[in-house]
């Protein structure tokens, strides 16, 4: 492999991995608080469609990001209400969120275009590549990391920030404790349910934001099934990352890299059918989960929050 190829694969990996990183870290935050939200796919696709519709009608990319985040947050709020207040099963509620989100996104995609028409096939504003002065000309990393769009750049600040919040602040420590032993956090006088609401919504906001990157930058525009299971890959990445934000980046880049290799192969005119090639990320997800599974030597590093998906009800303490 020559340097140019490595550079281009790395550049696509970062570009393709951005939406995954936001969605994965959002889900990590939610799960660390003890709430499992399987609605990531639904929130991402709703983020994607609402972002594109907003950008198309208002020409404002920033407003589009805001709307996508708000939509993701609102959907997560529904999940929070159903699972935290109504204490329903978190797995089924998350599935419901994905099913409803995919259906609603497809409905809106047919309705939010001009004259209540479809959005499919329309061209709207998109985030363009901005070269960071000075850094963009560095060898390899310049092209891979610093000739990207603003959302990719926002990630460079976002990931360290989340890490700092989770591991170096008191609320972050409480967040991690909340998923392990909500009773303890409750005993410290911290309103567990309120914080679980907040962190669930934060996860939704980030999933919606990640979805927006898809429709505003990665594959600009709207088409049915735009997210193509990325929300589910994000959930797998949470396990792969063992609930740590830093490793989530690694996983997202791995999946972005697979996309990059797919692109390169297709561009090079491979004889492998596109349908078979497109299986790669899904098969890779399974392989990755098997590799880090309970029977592997990496086992001791696995650590799902102990109270994940267990509703917390103060009067039913055991």
């Amino acid at each position, binding site marked *: 492999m020559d340097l140019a190829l490595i550079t281009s694969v790395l550049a696509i990996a970062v570009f393709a991995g951005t939406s995954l990183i936001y969605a994965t870290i959002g889900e990590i935050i939610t799960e660390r608080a003890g709430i499992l939200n399987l609605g990531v796919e639904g929130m991402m696709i709703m983020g994607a469609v609402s972002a594109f519709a907003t950008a198309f009608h208002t020409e404002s990319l920033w407003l589009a990001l805001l709307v996508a985040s708000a939509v993701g947050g609102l959907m997560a709020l529904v999940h929070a209400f159903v699972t935290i207040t*109504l204490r329903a099963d978190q797995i089924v509620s998350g599935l419901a969120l994905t*099913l409803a989100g995919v259906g609603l996104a497809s409905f809106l995609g047919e309705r939010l275009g001009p004259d209540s028409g479809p959005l499919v096939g329309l061209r709207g504003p998109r985030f363009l590549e901005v070269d960071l002065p000075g850094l963009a000309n560095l060898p390899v990393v310049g092209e891979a990391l610093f000739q990207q769009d603003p959302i990719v750049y926002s990630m460079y600040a976002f990931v360290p920030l989340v890490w700092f919040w989770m591991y170096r602040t008191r609320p972050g420590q409480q967040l991690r404790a909340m998923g392990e032993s909500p009773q303890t956090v409750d005993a410290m006088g911290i309103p567990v349910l309120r914080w679980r609401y907040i962190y669930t919504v934060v996860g939704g906001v980030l999933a919606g934001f990640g979805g927006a990157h898809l429709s505003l930058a990665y594959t600009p525009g709207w088409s049915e099934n735009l997210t193509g299971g990325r929300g589910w890959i994000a959930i797998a990445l949470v396990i792969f990352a063992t609930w740590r934000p830093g490793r989530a980046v690694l996983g997202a880049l791995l999946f972005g890299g697979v996309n990059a290799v797919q692109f390169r192969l297709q561009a090079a005119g491979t004889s492998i059918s596109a349908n078979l090639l497109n*299986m790669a990320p899904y098969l890779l*997800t399974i392989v990755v989960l098997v590799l880090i*599974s309970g029977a592997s030597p990496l086992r001791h590093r696995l650590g799902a929050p102990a109270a994940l998906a267990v509703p917390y009800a103060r009067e*039913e303490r055991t």
Partner: protein
Amino acid sequence: MIPWTIKFERRLDPPRYLGWLVPVLSVAAALVATAVLLAVFGVNPFETYRAMWDGAFGGLFGGDVYSLSETLVRATPLILAGLAVAVSFKMKFWNIGAEGQLVMGGIAASGVALFLPGAVPGIPQNAVVYGLLMGGAAILAGAAWALVPALLRAYLNVNEIITTLMLNYVAILWYSHLFTSVWNDPQGFGFPGSALFERFTWFPRFFDTRLHFGLVLGLIAAVFVWVLFDRTRFGYEIRLIGDNPEAARFAGVSMFRNIVLVMLVSGGLAGLAGLSEVAGVSHRLQQGLAADNGFTAIIVAWIAKLRPWAVVLVAILLAAVFVGGDQIQISMGLPASVAQVVQGVMLFFVLGGDIFSRYRVRITRTAPAPATEAV
């Protein structure tokens, strides 16, 4: 401060009637909520529901069964896939892969119908023999596809939600690959689909409608699952694991064995749904087999509270929503995906409404807070 508080008191012995009353009221509430949602998007909800009803059951009281038959045709794969999901969910084993297992069943049945008559001409070419062969192939293929996540979970503790879901994408891509290239009809002028199956492989149809044998298969499967749940040790064990895995372990119930068995049954039922679609409706492998039936099946199973008879009824209800959705696309120019929105909202309401059957909800006035804190 809000002057009242909501208290949840767990019902120790929930009355039986709540088991059906709560879901029925939840579905009704979901229809009201969707009506509001439609109104927000500038669509007249009354007109929409009226058109959906006409599409799904129109003319029924005038003796015209066409709409009803179309609804039942749509319900058939939902019944089979819904039962498949119900079996695994009973054990709280989250098989989200009914879609992929259905597709694999459809592929296997199509493979038999397309190639077996040519490869082994000696087999009697009639509906019974081929029905059994295609059925066997579909069950095996669906079960095999479900076996992968089952073994991964049983041996390596790999999260089945993700693996079953990922295998959906793989199955759908493979199926697209088959009907667009490898199995594509050479005489099809580039039409994306396989050749039409020979006539003797088709399911019999009833009453001059598209209603086909698949519905009978669905009803038989419902009886099978009911017997399995209520009359067998296996049914008792999976219910025990689902309700209380700790107790099941202490009782010596084998997790491994039950995971594998549950997924074989679940995958096999989903495979039959695929068979029913290719042998009863399309008579070839083409676009439309992966019509989200496996996902809608999750909604069916949960609204039905995993009870086999209720699965049949809820499948018909959701099929009516689908057929009604097609109708409003034709008559009102609204996207058919309204159907999915209605179904998703229904699931949420049933899920959330469940608290009323598990808890007694009390709203009480809070005593006014004392003005000063006693020291």
